[in-house]
């Protein structure tokens, strides 16, 4: 029921959203530490996520050292190796990617892009961050607990997760892991309510849903999915804690451990797998959809061209979000299931490729005959498209039951999911940081350091994960501490493993250049001005940069057009901001 009238000279309709009374901080503590300003919370989220992400990066180094040069490093024994795997996966997927995309970019960009002064529930938003920090601290605590962190694998499958054969199974590791996840989910729900309701109710005048930048669409849809999917992990964690601490048998079958019959009996490990993957598969898209949205905006801005097929992009985001809830069992082909179920889940899995492919075509068609500026955000966006297509193609293989079953336990799967949900979203995160850093700090990131960072990361990531596909195809199993005397493993695999490990060390080190750049540019970066990329979206039109508390000064902006008016024929500049009523000499209607 939204009515759009093109009469530009008409009187402004009255506001539909009342201007909110902002919380006014009184001291340094409430301004910068216990802040209720979404922008500060975003920076807190991002800093914490990147810090814990660095821990996960170092863990991946340690794993690669073991795989590349088995037996050389005494401190990495089999137990430690499994602990590294588990914590690396869990931290990267949940505490880094989810927190950074939704807590970091969501908090910073949603209010600014929809023209709000802040999130609708600032207090809950602040709590959300502090609860997230608590979850991270509980997670970190497990490194120092007796027995160390859990080594159950990031999927935490019972019964092994709570047995003595698994590191942390009978110690504190698994308890702290499950508690940390439960805390994370509580904190996330508080933040997630904010992101959703701000998009629904906090939009400024004229910002209809179909005028929102795709970044907001991506984060919004991902948040809705996360709110509905995380409860599955929550239930699974609570039930497993019951099994571990109170002796119930939700997931624990009758089992003999070290010659001793445990008191558990009758529980269903498959039940846990259903609950876990009911969360776990949407989680892939919770990470991917914000990346899809952000990359659309980066490409459009840096190719100076409107996004191709905006409507289709929005629909594809929503459809992917919906479909991703009915594909979870494709992670469980090897657990065994009714062949009809396998057929159903393989079909739905492959159907997701359709809206995803539409998005890829639209990105490419946006680039087609665009005025492509190879800026750092653009480079990372291009790297994302290539990487995502690569990872997506192997996903088509693995979506089929018959192909998945032999490949499921090999390094091929590791290569696949690192390409599609590791490297690809990380590329977008980097691109987004290079893109929005000038708005956050008022200064540009250093270009030379950025180029070094990009090329080493991009080429290095391919040097790591391309050979890994081959290693998997020749049958090297994943999750193995060492290959030992396996006769079928070709010699080439050993040298490739060493090569991959060296590349992993180099790519990891390149991230130090990036971190240095972030800090160095704070003081020494070039002054950016309000809108260095000459972009149309609202966050670049704030009266001050970096935007102060309340974002917009006295008056909220009014939106007159969609987010992609680049290179409009006849307009004096090659972009028209969303809050500009008149395009210039020739009106847009006359031109189209």
């Amino acid at each position: 029921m939204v009515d759009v009238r093109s009469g530009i000279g008409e009187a402004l309709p009255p506001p539909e959203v009342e201007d909110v009374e902002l919380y006014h901080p009184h001291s340094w503590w409430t301004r910068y530490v216990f802040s209720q300003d979404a922008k500060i919370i975003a920076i807190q989220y991002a800093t914490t996520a990147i810090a814990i992400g660095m821990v996960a990066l170092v863990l991946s180094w340690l794993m690669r050292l073991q795989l590349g040069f088995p037996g050389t490093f005494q401190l990495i024994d089999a137990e430690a190796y499994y602990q590294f795997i588990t914590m690396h996966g869990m931290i990267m997927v949940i505490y880094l990617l989810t927190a950074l995309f939704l807590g970091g970019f969501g908090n910073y960009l949603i209010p600014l892009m929809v023209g709000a002064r802040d999130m609708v529930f600032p207090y809950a938003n602040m709590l959300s961050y502090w609860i997230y920090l608590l979850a991270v601290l509980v997670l970190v605590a497990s490194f120092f607990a007796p027995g160390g962190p859990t080594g159950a694998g990031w999927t935490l499958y019972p019964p092994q997760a709570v047995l003595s054969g698994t590191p942390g199974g009978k110690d504190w590791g698994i308890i702290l892991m499950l508690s940390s996840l439960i805390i994370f989910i509580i904190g996330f729900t508080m933040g997630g309510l904010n992101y959703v309701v701000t998009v629904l109710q906090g939009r400024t005048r004229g910002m209809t849903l179909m005028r929102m930048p795709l970044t907001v669409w991506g984060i919004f849809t991902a948040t809705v999915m996360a709110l509905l999917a995380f409860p599955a992990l929550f239930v699974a964690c609570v039930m497993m804690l019951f099994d571990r601490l109170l002796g119930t048998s939700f997931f624990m079958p009758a089992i003999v451990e070290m010659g001793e019959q445990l008191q558990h009996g009758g529980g269903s490990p498959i039940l846990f797998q259903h609950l876990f993957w009911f969360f776990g598969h949407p989680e892939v898209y919770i990470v991917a959809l914000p990346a899809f949205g952000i990359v659309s905006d980066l490409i459009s801005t840096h190719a100076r061209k409107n996004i191709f097929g905006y409507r289709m992009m929005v629909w594809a985001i929503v459809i992917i979000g919906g479909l991703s809830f009915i594909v979870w069992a494709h992670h469980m082909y090897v657990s065994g299931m009714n062949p009809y179920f396998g057929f159903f889940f393989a079909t739905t899995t492959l159907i997701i490729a359709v809206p995803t492919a539409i998005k890829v075509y639209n990105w490419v068609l946006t680039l087609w005959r665009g005025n492509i500026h190879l800026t750092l955000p653009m480079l990372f966006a291009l790297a994302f498209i290539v990487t995502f297509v690569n990872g997506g193609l192997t996903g088509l293989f693995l979506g089929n039951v018959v192909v998945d079953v032999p490949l499921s336990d090999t390094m091929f799967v590791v290569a696949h999911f690192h390409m599609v949900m590791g490297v690809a979203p990380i590329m977008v995160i980097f691109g987004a940081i290079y893109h929005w850093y000038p708005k956050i700090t008022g200064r540009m990131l250093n270009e030379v350091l950025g180029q070094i960072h990009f090329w080493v990361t991009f080429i290095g990531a391919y040097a790591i994960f391309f050979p890994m596909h081959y290693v998997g195809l020749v049958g090297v199993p994943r999750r193995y501490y060492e290959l030992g005397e396996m006769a079928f493993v070709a010699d080439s695999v050993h040298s490739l493993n060493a090569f991959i490990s060296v590349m992993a060390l180099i790519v990891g080190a390149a991230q130090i250049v990036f971190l240095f750049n972030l800090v160095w540019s704070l003081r020494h970066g070039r002054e950016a001005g309000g809108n260095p990329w000459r972009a149309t979206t609202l966050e670049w039109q704030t009266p001050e940069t970096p935007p102060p508390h309340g974002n917009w000064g006295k008056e909220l902006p009014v939106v007159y057009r969609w987010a992609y008016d680049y290179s409009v024929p006849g307009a004096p500049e090659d972009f028209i901001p969303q809050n500009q009523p008149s395009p210039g000499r020739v009106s847009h209607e006359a031109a189209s």
Partner: protein
Amino acid sequence: MSVVVLFLATVAAVIVWWLAGQRVTSRPWLEVGHAHDRRSGAPMPPAKVGLGVFLAVVGALFSLAISAYFMRMTSSDWGALPLPGFLWVNTGILTAGSIALHWTKVEAERRHDEAARTGLLAALAAGLAFLAGQLFAWRILSGAGYLLADNPANSFFYMLTGMHGLHILGGLLALGRVTARAWNTPFDRRLRLSIELCAVYWHFMLIVWLVLFALFAGWASDVIDFCRQLLT
């Protein structure tokens, strides 16, 4: 998992219905100018939308737990536990609390502030009584030898009633704050909204409880068996 898929299908239907009113088929690239919303006079307050979204999350949580209940139920070691008749009293108390809050909301809208204050107190008392009653039911069961870890049916009973109780406890904290505000300050629009939200939350928790009650009593699986027979 069919319970949760059914629940999500309902949520999806709401989302599709809402999207249908948002002109998602418009061509934003052709539409320059003022856009204004003509849906209704006053937009929904953000807190109300927030509560709606939160209840969807809570609903997902309980439907997942119920899905797990049905999946675990099929194993051979399942031994249903006898429901204490006392739970009927608790159900009555919770219903009374829900009715009290509904009445409070109506009275508050009619500007009968004194009546609304009484209603709030009554609802608060009902909530506390319900929690005490649930604890009492736990005692009856554990006294009769039905302990948490003995049988999966017991485990689910304690876990689900515990989860529901925690939600009621959270609701009581909010209700307590609203009651304190109602006694200290004159009624304004914000307070009336808070009362309305408490009422919505209470109705929702009542529905969740009724579903859980039906589940424990075995009626829910009877209904499902009946549906299965209809389908096959």
